[in-house]
């Protein structure tokens, strides 16, 4: 059973945390240009 399984099963239940800092679009995965 996952965490909050009973709440999730009982209706709409979303936990949303904002980013901790300003950011532009994260880069696509697959390589670090500074390596």
């Amino acid at each position, binding site marked *: 059973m996952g*965490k*909050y*399984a*009973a*709440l999730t099963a*009982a*209706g*709409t*239940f*979303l*936990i*949303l*945390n*904002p*980013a*901790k*800092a*300003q*950011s*532009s*679009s*994260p*880069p*696509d995965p*697959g*390589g*670090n*240009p*500074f*390596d």
Partner: protein
Amino acid sequence: MKHHLSPKHTKKIGDSVIVWFEKSNSYIVLNEELHKLLDLYIFSKDKISFISNIQKFGYSHTQSRSLFKDIDILLKDQNVEDFTDNLKDIPFKALSKEYSESYNIWNTKIALHYSSEKVKQLIHPSLSYLAEANYSTCDTNIHIYQEKHELVLAENETSVFRCLAKDYHKLQGKFSQLIMNILYKTKESDYLGCFHATTVSKSDKAIMLIGSSGSGKSTLSAILQKNGFKLVSDDVSYMNKLDLSIKAYPSAISIKEGSLTSLNSFYNNLMQLPKVNLNPKKGYIRYIPPLEMDYKKSPLCNTILLVNYKKNVPTRLDALNIKYVLEVLIPESWIAHESESALNFLNWLETINCYRLTYSNAEGISDLLCQEIIDK
């Protein structure tokens, strides 16, 4: 039973209830019934009375016990302080070699000094349309340099931010905040947040375009600015904390190589635009300068479009439940971790109309948005 664990703010929007917890800076979206259960937990005398109360809603004894356990853990989790790394003192290092450019951004002159051509690629292509042909000295000097595995951002020879080089998007984010502060003579605490969104406006009404990377929001903004809309900001949309207006940001519109063909009928010189390739495995990104950016006006926004580019589909604009917007918007945005900003954000959400725009070609989109949003 546990009043001290209650959310600080609660806002009902449509059939959803959004609660905000101060310690964790979490927004939790619930339907009305779950919100009632949360309230019952908080106001019930003890576990036995909670379980007996919620059984009246039709839950079995087992379900009621499981719900008690979940709400108990949830409220404890949300009342743990959110830990944010504090910036340690980073001494500024003068660069042995600098790649310098001066920019005239809305009559404010700013010099940027990069430690290498590669570091220059992080910022310069998006602002190159504002670069001066010949470098000139400026009162404001920003340094961006690589030091081993890290990137450092400094303003007037004082370091203000550093991050791992692979997380260069975080440096780009802090750079955008720094530029906002310089251009508008503000500080970070003057902003409610920085949304991961592209914003366009028409007739002083702003529309925020959101969606994951590749969803077509920047491409759509490039189409719209050729059809009577103005760009307010690409990729980062800063909202003023008090009046909730969206402040213009000068970056050009970033377009992935694969999206250029859909813009061919609107722009003649796409292949001549500044380009950058930070990742050899991916294509180029090109930057389309804003056509008419009205930085003196900061429009209010009461529309969010979740943009959904798909091949070979007719254009559709459908009303959308706010929960689908929030699950995209909140995790990708910085929202100041303090009570007033959270409350203002929730109050703003109450005024928002949400839509999903599905499109594959540009034809008719601006007319549709005018008809359904701007002129309404």
